[in-house]
């Protein structure tokens, strides 16, 4: 059984690791640290009889996301202990997350040690693209699931030699709704929006933009062919999240990528 998350072999995820270990494995983080319970809702149970004497009411006051938040805190403690800067990239499908990762790995791969977790419902197409850059990559297929959760990430990173990493990039399942609610233990959520989508996406999917610290406005090389108004889009994003950092980029031409790289470098140094 897994000591951090309590999952048994029957619930186990694919263990196609390139290092050997048994099932009573440790996760290498300092246990007892960082185990917060979401909104401070600790589980406390007390029962009392209801008017109908055959039934009882049990007050439990437990945060539904408590388990995910506990595992995310364990991930965060692990990443902190190993000194890894971790980003969770979120967007709708087709915004160019994988292309941004490929370009970033190509341009910065010589300077920093990266690893990538790829989340998709099916296929390892994105992992194949990332592997071609030479960076270690782990594909997580969520099946019917619409988001990555902290448990999936906990096991995905077992495949990496964490002591040898500077930056971990987690590409979430393409979906502007569900991944907003699930903390993975990352330092920042980075939302990618492409100019071929509507400029009002930040208003239509406000949680994602509210919870992200950075927005990459991608495919700006296509702007001359579109009616998309980048200023309007940025104003909408700031309406939902006044503090959001915005970089206008093209992963295809490389335009604007330098600002993103400077932000990454500064984050790593902190």
């Amino acid at each position: 059984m897994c000591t951090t998350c309590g999952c048994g072999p029957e619930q186990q995820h694919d263990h196609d690791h390139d290092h050997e270990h048994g099932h009573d494995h440790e996760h290498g983080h300092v246990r007892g640290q960082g185990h917060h319970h979401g909104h401070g809702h600790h589980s406390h149970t007390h029962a009392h009889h209801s008017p109908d004497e055959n039934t009882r009411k049990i007050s439990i006051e437990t945060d539904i996301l408590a388990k995910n938040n506990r595992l995310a805190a364990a991930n965060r403690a692990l990443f902190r202990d190993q000194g890894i800067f971790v980003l969770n990239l979120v967007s709708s499908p087709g915004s160019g997350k994988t292309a941004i990762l490929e370009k970033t790995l190509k341009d910065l791969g010589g300077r920093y040690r990266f690893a990538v977790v790829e989340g998709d419902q099916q296929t390892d197409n994105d992992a194949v693209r990332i592997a071609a850059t030479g960076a270690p990559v782990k594909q997580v297929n969520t099946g019917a699931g619409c988001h990555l959760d902290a448990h999936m990430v906990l096991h995905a990173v077992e495949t990496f030699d964490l002591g040898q990493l500077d930056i971990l990039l987690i590409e979430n399942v393409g979906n502007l709704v569900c991944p907003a609610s699930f903390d993975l233990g990352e330092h920042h959520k980075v939302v990618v929006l492409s100019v071929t989508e509507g400029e009002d996406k930040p208003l239509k999917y406000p949680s994602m933009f509210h919870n992200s610290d950075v927005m990459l406005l991608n495919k700006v090389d296509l702007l001359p062919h579109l009616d998309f108004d980048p200023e309007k889009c940025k104003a909408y994003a700031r309406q939902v999240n006044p503090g959001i950092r915005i970089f206008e980029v093209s992963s295809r031409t490389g335009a604007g990528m330098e600002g993103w790289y400077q932000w990454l470098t500064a984050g790593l140094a902190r």
Partner: protein
Amino acid sequence: MHEMSIAQSIAEICEQNAGGRRVLAVVLEIGELSNILPESLEFCFDACSRETLLDGARLEIVRVPGRGRCASCAGEFPLKALYDPCPTCGGYGVEIVAGEEMTVKELEVE
């Protein structure tokens, strides 16, 4: 459709607290800004509670209205959406003080 994984977490919390007794009702507190659709949650809860202690349990969902606090003038006000400005000063730096709740409050067991 993350209501399915939310429903599975609810079922897990209920099973852990029911002490092996059949669960007749589950009371949840779900904030209006929490990205949960109650109808969808009920559907998923029915699906994942079949043939468990929760089979047939009634789901009572208490909605918590959104409330925001303005970072500029510190005023509190009802918040319908995350992009609502402060009605007093028009500022957009709004901290959410209520409406994101997702809590299992109470179980009724046999």
